[in-house]
């Protein structure tokens, strides 16, 4: 990409400075890390659990695929050319890269082979419960050990080389093939939903063509077709000179608004009809994703805008659920006004706002990391109190509150998951609207300034107390809506639903999606809540994946997968550094660029 716009200076510099060499010691280190990760993947039972699902009939089960995908990824990483600094020529891939990939992959294979030998020689199941003979059978491809060991190492090496080979593909090819493979995986994993979808739109025949049956794995032909179709699509898109976003940005302002409204309308329409097409199970999953999305949008304001890491965010969710339950349920222990949910909503909001103030006030003058821990403490205190016998006369203790009536608006009662999708969806739209409206407002700017530098923000006239309180209150109210809907949909609430893991899950959603980005948070909620619910195999390792995702995102993509525009711009600081460099050397830099318009 850089080649297109590279100024002459850079070309001159390139002649002077050779490309840095690929470091083989790094490949060995990555190989050892690969071995460790692969052994952990096998020993924590992921391989065994995933093995039950076939990706492509009859030869590609998910367990082994996942295991060797690790080797593939490490191969890719090991062969990745070192980052080139300004003025250095970017290294072009050569045999060294392939060797590095092979090395990293092979070492992983050695790790698995060692594990296999160990677990078949000694009985380790007393300690490591997953190291069963069944796992040994899977790892050895059903072969005797002597034959399996070389095969394992060979397969891992091939996977590593395949990972390294990605660097050899031209960008356009890479951008066609990788998404193609990804879509094959998506089709194979969500075979139920894909089937349901085609059935919903009346194209059942496609299902029977691509899959061995409804809910079955892909056929070989099906996999090839899916791959070909999607690769072709991406190939076509990659051929165009401008991206969608660029073309969108080039439109005149009024047309841009029109397009935005049109796109939003189309997405809303699709989402509106989704539950009808997808059936109750998927709708239930979408409902819980929506409730988490509501919370995520709230935390997005507290953390993404105001920069306050609230680890006890679940407390506000609990306040919403419990206040709504007490006000609506006939089974509420203390008092039973038996309001409708709609009538109770103002009180729920009020309770949430009070809770927000109670949590926020003591932490106003606190440093960011202490704030995180204190809010975590508040969250846990709330859960223990809800669970306690002491307060059982109000909150029902461990038995919780049952018999919460469904949402009722006028004559219409929302009962099934499909019904509930509508109010949840509306609340999400409102929350998203609030998020976007507030971002470009006086307080939105104040929050962001506070996030960037609290003491300067205060010196620039922002009342930190009001700013923090208001961020917490907005966040709390959004979470309380989520809680109220959650309780009324499930019909009963128990303290253990308000565990710390809820807070962490919401945190993972906004980190993965992209802090401050509404589309990002939406995709994050769908991917992280819907995925584990739809894939039984994943749900057991849900939190392990969340943990790994948190680390990986912070290391590799702190701005999230779908960053807000602002964050996307931050990524281009490297280009800026280059500009500055050129400016120093007297070439035309941004400072001298003609100004198109003036105020």
């Amino acid at each position, binding site marked *: 990409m850089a080649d297109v716009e590279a100024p002459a200076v850079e070309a001159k510099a390139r002649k002077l400075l050779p490309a840095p060499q690929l470091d083989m010691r790094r490949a060995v280190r990555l190989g050892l890390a690969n071995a460790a990760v692969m052994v952990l993947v096998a020993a924590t039972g992921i391989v065994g659990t995933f093995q039950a699902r076939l990706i492509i009939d009859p030869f590609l089960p998910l367990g082994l695929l996942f295991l060797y995908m690790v080797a593939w990824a490490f191969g890719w990483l090991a062969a990745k050319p070192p980052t080139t600094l300004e003025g250095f020529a970017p290294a072009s891939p050569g045999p060294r890269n392939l060797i590095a990939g092979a090395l990293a992959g092979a070492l992983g294979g050695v790790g698995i082979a060692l594990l296999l030998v160990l677990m078949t020689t000694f009985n380790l199941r007393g300690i490591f419960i997953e190291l069963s003979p069944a796992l040994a059978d899977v790892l050895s491809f059903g072969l005797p050990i002597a034959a399996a060991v070389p095969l394992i190492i060979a397969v891992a090496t091939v996977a590593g080389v395949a990972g390294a080979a990605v660097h050899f593909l031209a960008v356009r090819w890479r951008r066609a093939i990788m998404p193609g493979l990804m879509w094959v995986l998506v089709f194979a994993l969500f075979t139920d939903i894909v089937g349901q979808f085609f059935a919903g739109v009346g194209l059942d025949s496609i299902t029977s063509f691509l899959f061995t049956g409804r809910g079955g794995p892909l056929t070989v032909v099906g996999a090839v077709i899916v791959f070909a179709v999607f690769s072709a699509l991406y190939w076509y898109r990659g051929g165009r000179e401008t991206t969608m976003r660029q073309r969108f940005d080039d439109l005149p302002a009024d047309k841009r608004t029109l397009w935005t409204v049109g796109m939003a309308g189309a997405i809303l329409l699709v989402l509106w009809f989704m539950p009808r097409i997808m059936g109750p199970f998927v709708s239930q999953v979408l409902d819980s994703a929506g409730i988490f999305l509501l919370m995520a949008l709230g935390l997005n304001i507290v953390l993404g805008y105001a920069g306050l890491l609230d680890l006890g965010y679940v407390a506000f969710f609990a306040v919403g659920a419990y206040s709504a339950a007490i006000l609506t349920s006939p089974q509420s222990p203390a008092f039973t006004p038996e309001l409708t949910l709609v009538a109770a909503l103002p009180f729920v909001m009020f309770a949430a706002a009070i809770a927000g103030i109670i949590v926020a006030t003591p932490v106003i003058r606190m440093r960011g990391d202490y704030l995180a821990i204190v809010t975590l403490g508040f969250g846990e205190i709330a859960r223990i109190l809800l669970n306690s016998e002491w307060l059982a006369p109000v909150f029902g203790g461990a038995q919780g509150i049952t018999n919460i009536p469904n949402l009722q608006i006028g004559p219409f009662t929302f009962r099934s998951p499909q019904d509930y999708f509508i109010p949840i969806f509306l609340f999400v739209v409102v929350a998203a609207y609030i998020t976007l409206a507030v971002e470009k*407002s006086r*307080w939105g700017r104040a929050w*962001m300034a506070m996030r960037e530098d609290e003491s*300067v923000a205060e*010196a*620039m006239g*922002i009342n930190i107390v009001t700013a923090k309180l208001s961020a917490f209150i907005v966040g709390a109210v959004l979470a309380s809506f989520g809680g109220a809907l959650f309780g009324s949909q499930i019909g009963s609430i128990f303290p253990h639903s308000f565990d710390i893991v809820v807070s962490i899950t919401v945190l993972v959603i906004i980190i993965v999606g992209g802090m401050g980005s509404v589309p990002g948070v939406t995709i994050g909620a769908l991917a992280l809540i819907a995925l584990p619910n739809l894939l039984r195999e994943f749900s057991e390792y849900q939190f392990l994946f969340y943990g790994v995702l948190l680390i990986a995102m912070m290391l590799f993509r702190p701005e999230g997968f779908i960053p807000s525009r602002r*964050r996307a711009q931050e990524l281009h600081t490297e280009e800026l550094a280059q500009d500055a460099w050129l*400016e120093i050397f007297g070439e035309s830099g941004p400072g001298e660029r003609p100004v198109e318009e003036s*105020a």
Partner: protein
Amino acid sequence: MPMLEIDGLSKSFGGLKAINGLNLHVEEGEIVSVIGPNGAGKTTFFNLVTGMDSPDGGNIVFDGQNLVGLRPNQILQLGLARTFQNVRLFPAMTVLENVMVGQHARTSSGLLSAIFKTPRHRREEAEIEARAKDVLGFFGSRLVGYRFDQLSMMLSYANRRRLEIARAMATDPRLLLLDEPTAGMNPRETLELTELIGRLRDEKGYTIVLIEHDMQVVRNVSDRVVVLDHGVKLIEGSFDEISTNQNVIEAYLGRPAELGS
């Protein structure tokens, strides 16, 4: 009555007396330079006046109101704004947003009016934006046009300094405290900024106190110069008076060339 009157101000960090019984006054419409060797307590003095640090003793009276014990945002509200020695912008906010933040204390629309997009809110937003663009226009063509939507972290060093001044201007101050506004600038930019400081007073009517190391700037811009050393006022007077003063030269020993230039 002076606009800013400081009386017996003291502040120590641990055993170090950063400011030690400082007396100082600034008249309305003046440009006062505060100079002194490194560690003389100049920045501490700014921190105390703007409420970012609290003094151990003494009074800071601005316009008849004692500032001691007020929060920085309250002090800003009264009409004191500052810039920072090591430029402290809001890096992940755009140029325009940085200046818009400056107007926070001078505007009043709340969250609900933003959510419901009331006509008042829309009017105020438009005003904030117009004023921000206007303030940025003060710096010529450097911070306008496509710059509006650039993140402030992407600006060059000199432009960041300018943006910081713009942000302070947007708070509609009466007294502007500039902490080494020309640090790190090249001679051409320094000259330009010197001129700009004069314009700030003449066109905008600000009273200005600046900390400065560049004696050219001090000579060209100041009505009065205050020399600090070890937290006490060594001397004050016109540039010519202080530049020939023996004590000042001693305090600056090791850097006399700069003074004489």
